[in-house]
């Protein structure tokens, strides 16, 4: 008990003396997670919208597959991309392995099914009259999509927030595709893994606190976006 308490107290004390390496890891985490969230949302929102509106054979099967894909473990995504991005691999010439871009790629794939499934659910949850009314008023396809996105903005934003949370907290992809290179691909989560392996429990806990504080901060930003959406 006293040991555990001691580690937590030490972690709190360490928060006051975090060095530049920690801030760099926070910056890397934020950078790659934001990039992959934006890219996954750019692809996943239209996909989910289409899936929610379109009617075609095999739609239920596709939806089921999509939901299953949400369970793909990060270590498997990391492994597949390792096989592809290694110099020996299919896209070895791109020289992406052990770069931040490689992490972004892997995290995109991790977040895409989540964004698509949530956007799909959000679209199906919309009042069908919105679409019909828009069409009746002569809105084209793009205009209708924009209307629907605007109408369901809370849910679509929530899909993005969920995706950000998923990629910001993952460690498998960052470790396998980033390589945990100090000041370059070391994220907060891989730093926690490293400190844990070194037995630096208090420092690992301190990094965990930093991670949660940053996640909270990002969600407050999202909440603000959310609030602005309400006023119009």
């Amino acid at each position, binding site marked *: 008990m006293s040991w555990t308490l001691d580690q937590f107290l030490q972690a709190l004390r360490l928060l006051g003396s975090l060095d530049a390496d920690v801030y760099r890891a926070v910056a890397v985490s934020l*950078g*790659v997670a*934001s*990039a992959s969230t*934006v890219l996954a*949302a750019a692809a996943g929102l239209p996909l989910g919208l289409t899936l929610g509106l379109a009617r075609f054979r095999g739609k239920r099967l596709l939806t089921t597959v999509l939901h299953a894909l949400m369970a793909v473990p990060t270590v498997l995504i990391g492994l597949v991309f390792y096989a592809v991005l*290694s*110099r*020996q691999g299919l896209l*070895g010439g791109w*020289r992406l*392995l*052990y*770069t*931040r*871009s490689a992490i*972004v790629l892997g995290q995109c794939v991790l977040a895409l099914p989540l964004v698509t499934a949530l956007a799909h659910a959000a679209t199906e949850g919309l009042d069908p009259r919105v679409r019909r009314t828009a069409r009746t008023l002569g809105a084209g396809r793009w205009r209708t999509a*924009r209307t629907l*996105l*605007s109408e369901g*903005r809370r849910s679509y*934003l929530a899909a993005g927030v969920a995706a950000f949370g998923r990629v910001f907290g993952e460690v498998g992809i960052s470790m396998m595709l980033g*390589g*945990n*290179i*100090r000041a*370059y691909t070391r994220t907060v989560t891989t730093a926690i893994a490293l400190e*844990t*392996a*070194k*037995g630096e429990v208090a420092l690992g806990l301190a990094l965990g606190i930093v991670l949660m504080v940053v996640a909270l901060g990002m969600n407050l930003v999202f909440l603000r*976006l959310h609030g*602005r*959406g309400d*006023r*119009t």
Partner: protein
Amino acid sequence: MRSIAYALVVIGGLLAAVLGFSCGEAPPPPEGLGTIRLATTTSTENSGLLDKLLPPFEARFGAEVHVISVGTGRALALARNGDADVVLVHAPAAETAFVEAGHGAGRRAVMVNDFVLLGPAEDPAGAAKAESAADALAAVAKAGATFASRGDDSGTHKKERALWAEAGIQPAGAWYLEVGQGMGATLLLADEKRAYCLSDRGTYLAMRDKIHLAVRFEGTPVLRNPYSIIAVNPARHPDVNYAGAMALIGWVTSPEGQAIIGGFRVGGQVLFHPTAVPDAATGPAAKGTSPQAAPPLAAPDAP
């Protein structure tokens, strides 16, 4: 609608910032050796040695060294695939095979420390009384005492398997735990399980104050643990940073690099003894060695 526009502007700005940041991938310094990918073992990075050894090199040669720390087996596999420019590892047999198969060029001996058999204070297997390292392991197996193995094809794991083979034992059973993690994590697990464990002395010393395990067997020549540095063969992988790799090899085997290695201490203890330059071994390293930290120094085993 305006809110959506606002969100788009924010997201667009974020995207632009992130793209700017992502596209700055591995920027090679305008002059200098560029980015050098060093695949190495957890023991060299976890101990903190590379934090002392690399920054002066990077400053002087305008290089950026990206350290990827994994087990020796994986480090060599990365190098084989051209995913690293240079490796710093400790598994002489595997290194020889690596070079003979044409994957590496310019192997140099760098430093040596030694392996120690750690165990709980009670020493239930009586490993401390063994005649040789293999005997000590045999005693652990015979007593059915818990043993934590790296199980990850690292240099330490390779050495451990060689010792089991020497003892004529195929370790298996509930007492034999294959951890599959780095040295530090394995030590922590062994400590929790009150298990025996083969460790390099560097990691043990670096973590000594966090664990209760103590050295149960040490000091025979078979436990010597030499580290070598090898450049990836540029004939196999034309786009590796061969010049950078050779410069790094030059640095760690130079008198300056060797002096940094020999002068590196954790808790007042010398962790690695330089072996590349004969004089460096009798320099700062030899002065500060405590009797416990001195490994059996045989001739450097450079090829």
